């Protein structure tokens, strides 16, 4: 059995199991930890597929930065209590599972019809496409063919940073009439009229 096959069959069950565990876990912090496991297994698949740069980025950005942000917000809000199991819409959960199974079957048959289950990747990916290392090859493609989209993403990141500063600032203006009334009342109670 070739090595990449072994790696696939070791990590694929871990990946699926951690995803399902995330789904079933009622505590949000535990769900986040299972998601981190899932991100690590996906990074291993990147390595098997010859994307060693994305392997590093996946661990640093996803398992590192994004999940730390998630856990930070979870701890900040203190929403690490268990979710209630009451259904607001009747039969939503069975329907959701049914829909998910439908999506999977559809994708499964699409893959079978599209490329078939026996198609193997051409050998020698590291010698032809990844020549000089995956990071260097990726940089060549990124800065030659995709330079404009790359610049656009930098603008996107700046916009996101500004948006978060606006959204997360505390002095949010009142939106509804009732909120405006309560805000005005609170302001009045806080600052009584100066005595003459």
């Amino acid at each position, binding site marked *: 059995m070739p090595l990449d096959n072994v790696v696939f069959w070791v990590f*694929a069950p871990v990946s699926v199991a951690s995803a399902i565990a995330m789904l079933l876990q009622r505590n949000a912090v535990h769900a986040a930890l299972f998601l981190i496991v899932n991100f690590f297994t996906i990074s291993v698949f990147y390595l098997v597929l010859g994307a060693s740069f994305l392997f590093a980025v996946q661990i640093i950005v996803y398992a590192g930065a994004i999940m730390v942000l998630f856990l930070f917000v979870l701890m900040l*809000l203190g929403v690490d209590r268990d979710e*209630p199991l009451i259904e607001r819409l009747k039969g939503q959960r069975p329907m959701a599972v049914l829909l998910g199974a439908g999506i999977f079957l559809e994708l499964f048959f699409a893959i079978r019809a599209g490329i078939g289950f026996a198609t193997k990747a051409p050998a020698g990916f590291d010698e032809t496409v990844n020549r000089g290392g995956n990071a260097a090859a990726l940089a060549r493609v990124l800065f030659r063919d995709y330079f404009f989209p790359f610049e656009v993403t930098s603008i996107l990141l700046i916009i996101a940073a500004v948006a978060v500063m606006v959204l997360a600032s505390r002095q949010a203006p009142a939106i509804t009439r009732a909120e405006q009334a309560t805000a005005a009342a609170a302001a009045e109670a806080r600052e009584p009229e100066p005595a003459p």
Partner: protein
Amino acid sequence: MRTPISYFLVLSALLFSIGTVGVLVRRNALVIFMSVELQLNAVNLALVAFSRMHENLDGQVLAFFSMVVAAAEVVVGLAIILNVYRRRQSASVDDASVLRG
């Protein structure tokens, strides 16, 4: 590499479906957001697998861009959830129903 590419694609489809069920089933806005992240990762895996199959790096570049967009999206989304929580003292999507007619 002797593993057929379709194995990775089927795994990616499975993870995407699990993420979809997570979005539909869970009530906590943060966990719904995590399920969206799972879906994004599943699609990234498919992109990298296709990049390997077609012997060019466009798929990997696309996966890279989708990671950048996902990072921006996470930051903005978490700020919105934070705001909703400050207003309603709850991160459950069931409680955010003031627009219901």
